[in-house]
């Protein structure tokens, strides 16, 4: 890259005039970066291409390179389980993002009211983020177990007709994923918002107070609009987590009952690794990548534009 750049040309042209030490210093940074760049090109971009190629073949147990065009994508579109997984992702992702945002913002605002023991509360809200999704899944599976968990506990309190058996209900199982995921990630969103709140210039709020605005109104009209960039990045991160969600499903519902709570990530894994459908699995992986890009590209675009203008 540097050899063709205009800025480097004179240096290259007169390279012979430079001392050995000078040449080495000029090349060392590039040498240091080279392995990482090579790794990135090979293992990220190369592998993406490779997966794309696999998705165009009829590979099953082992990769084969017999091309079938976009046949695997057509199969995917006709696959009932894929549609369940995709619909689940929209449901799960949408609810997960929305609830995390509302809960995170609410907790952040409440915590921002000069609360005693704020540090301790913050620690409590945020610790689930340190856990593995597998641990989260195992715990919530236990809590949601109708026979021994929350349902049994509430019934034990005398509410004999209380029902909370979503995890065994094919229509509701996907919502248990939402509960567990919100539990894990909402504290993190709270931390993002709290950092955003603390970053707001105090004098803006003081000015609004002098203008006679009430506290809720100050938040609604002045403070929350300032948090737009935080909302933006939170949505970005959360949807990213949602699309990648794999471990949580495996540990909490196993994709079940049946495949009622499958997500694309588990669909991909099941087909590529256990059901010997490498071609189909690859096609689903490419669609997941497409989903991530659909969120990422507008985000990066606006980020870059803001930075250029800012």
């Amino acid at each position: 890259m540097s050899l063709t750049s205009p800025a480097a040309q004179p240096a290259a042209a007169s390279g012979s005039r430079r001392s050995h030490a000078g040449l080495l210093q000029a090349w060392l940074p590039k040498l240091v970066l080279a392995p990482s760049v090579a790794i990135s090109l090979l293992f990220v971009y190369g592998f993406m291409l490779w997966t794309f190629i696999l998705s165009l073949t009829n590979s099953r147990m082992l990769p084969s390179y017999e091309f079938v065009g976009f046949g695997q994508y057509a199969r995917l579109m006709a696959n009932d389980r894929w549609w369940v997984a995709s619909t689940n992702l929209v449901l799960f992702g949408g609810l997960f993002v929305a609830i995390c945002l509302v809960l995170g913002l609410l907790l952040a605002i409440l915590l921002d009211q000069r609360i005693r023991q704020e540090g301790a509360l913050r620690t409590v809200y945020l610790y689930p983020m340190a856990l593995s999704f597998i641990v989260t899944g195992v715990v919530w599976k236990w809590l949601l177990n109708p026979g021994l968990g929350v349902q049994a506990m509430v019934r034990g309190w005398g509410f004999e007709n209380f029902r909370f058996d979503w995890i065994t209900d094919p229509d509701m199982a996907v919502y248990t994923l939402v509960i567990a995921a919100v539990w894990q990630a909402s504290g993190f969103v709270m931390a993002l918002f709290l950092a955003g709140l603390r970053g707001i210039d105090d004098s803006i709020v003081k000015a609004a107070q002098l203008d006679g605005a009430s506290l809720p109104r100050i938040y609604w009209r002045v403070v929350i609009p300032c948090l737009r960039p935080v909302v933006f990045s939170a949505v970005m991160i959360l949807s990213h987590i949602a699309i990648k969600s794999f471990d949580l499903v495996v540990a909490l519902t196993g994709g079940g009952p049946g495949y009622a709570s499958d997500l694309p990530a588990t669909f991909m894994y099941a087909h590529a690794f256990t059901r010997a459908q490498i071609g189909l699995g690859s096609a689903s992986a490419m669609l997941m990548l497409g989903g991530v890009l659909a969120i990422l590209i507008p985000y990066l675009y606006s980020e870059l534009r803001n930075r250029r203008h800012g």
Partner: protein
Amino acid sequence: MADPIRRRTLGARLARAVLYTVLLLAALFYLLPLAVMLITSLKPLAEITPGTLLSLPREPTLAPWAKAWGEACTGMRCEGVGVYFFNSIAIVVPAVLVSTIVGALNGYALTKWRFKGSELLFALMLFGCFIPFQVVLLPMAQTLGWLGLSSSRAGLILVHVIFGIAFTTLFFRNFYVAVPTELVSAAKLDGAGFFRIFWRILLPVSAPIVVVTVIWQFTQIWNDFLFGVAFSAHDTQPVTVALNNLVNTSTGVREYNVDMAAAMIAALPTLIVYVLAGKYFVRGLTAGSVKG
């Protein structure tokens, strides 16, 4: 943010009470699962009956922990999660060290030795933070096979290093961008070279970002499941995979207390790190996720 002169009216006091109630209820929501997990892991199996979710153990016992650590069945074998706990450590430590060192050097070269195209290279590498890993699983499996690293700890270390570099580079790059470049200019004039400037000038001020990066990488790799389940065999599994196998092993009676003890064991290292260095953990989360 509340006004400094607080009127102690009845309404204000009531609002304050509601505020604290809501915050405490939320704390309860977050704490409940951990509490249940801990309580259950200390109960003998006989005490686990419907409706006793929150009851404290009448005869607290560490037996479930012992069983989870040394005897519980994870799939076909019954040797507990202890051995996999050490697998995780054997994978995490080298992977964290290597990816942090590489990330530090990358961040340094990208910010303090800019050259034409270096920003482009950074953007190129940054993309690795965002891809869903499903898109690299199959080629990676085949490549590990070619390298003779299938189902080995070395293979998992390699995978974690490869896909961790994007994050570590991002962390260090964003940190070093804020370190005045004039420091490097001064050192160049003083006669120091690339590595010496890094070692003598940059590294001594990098403690915070090293801590953030190490914690981030540690949590990510310790908590990883996808790479673990895809690229390990029985004897090289990380603890998350073993935990999942343990919970899903369907032989004999469901021993929930053992499940919970195993989950606690898998969760403890990252929880301890979080409690000890929460500030850096949060900084990593926000820095790692917000932007490049």
